[in-house]
């Protein structure tokens, strides 16, 4: 089966600019997650969707981050405006249902200048 697809792989922007990341989960996976991984740290959950509804966004900085999952398939994560501390790898993951192992994409590496 095809894995989780993410784009772009790399993005360089200046602080205060906006950026968007795209994720296509494994076909049939109802649950989708966005994680932020800062260098030297483990992935940190930002938001979790069940189909097209938000299950948990308690760690999403809502003043600058937003995410949506239209039609319960693809998802986008947006940062506006970006800050220097947002430099990280943004990982998307999906699972068949909640409680099943999550499968990760290769991530988008974001660098803020």
């Amino acid at each position, binding site marked *: 089966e095809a894995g*989780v697809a993410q784009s772009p792989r790399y993005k360089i922007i200046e602080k205060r600019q906006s950026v968007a990341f795209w994720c296509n989960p494994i076909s049939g996976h109802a*649950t989708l997650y966005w994680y932020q991984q800062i260098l*030297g*740290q*483990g*992935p*940190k*959950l930002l938001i*979790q969707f069940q189909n097209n509804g938000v299950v*948990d966004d308690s760690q999403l900085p809502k003043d600058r981050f937003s995410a949506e999952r239209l039609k319960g398939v693809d998802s986008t994560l947006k940062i506006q405006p970006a800050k220097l501390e947002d430099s990280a790898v943004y*990982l998307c*993951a999906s699972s068949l249902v*909640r*409680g099943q*192992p*999550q*499968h*990760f*994409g*290769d*991530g988008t590496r974001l660098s803020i200048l």
Partner: protein
Amino acid sequence: DQQVKQNSPSLSVQEGRISILNCDYTNSMFDYFLWYKKYPAEGPTFLISISSIKDKNEDGRFTVFLNKSAKHLSLHIVPSQPGDSAVYFCAVGGGAGSYQLTFGKGTKLSVIP
């Protein structure tokens, strides 16, 4: 305040020998435990999991042990192979109906031929 700790940032093991990676957690409510492997520039790959009702789960060369009283889990790789060289993340979740995963910072395993 780290809820999941991997106290060894790195580990070197000779090919053919056993690799033991350790992970400690603080919240006794966690009931779902996983190990992920990550190669550079790729997303984490699910390796093996264990639920709190078991104390051991085995899959080929990989075995995960869970000691609930000590809030400790470990991953054993026997025999270790050069292709096992990667960063290994421990992840824990569950409890009170939550499926959110919390990751450790990872341990970089180097298997020397």
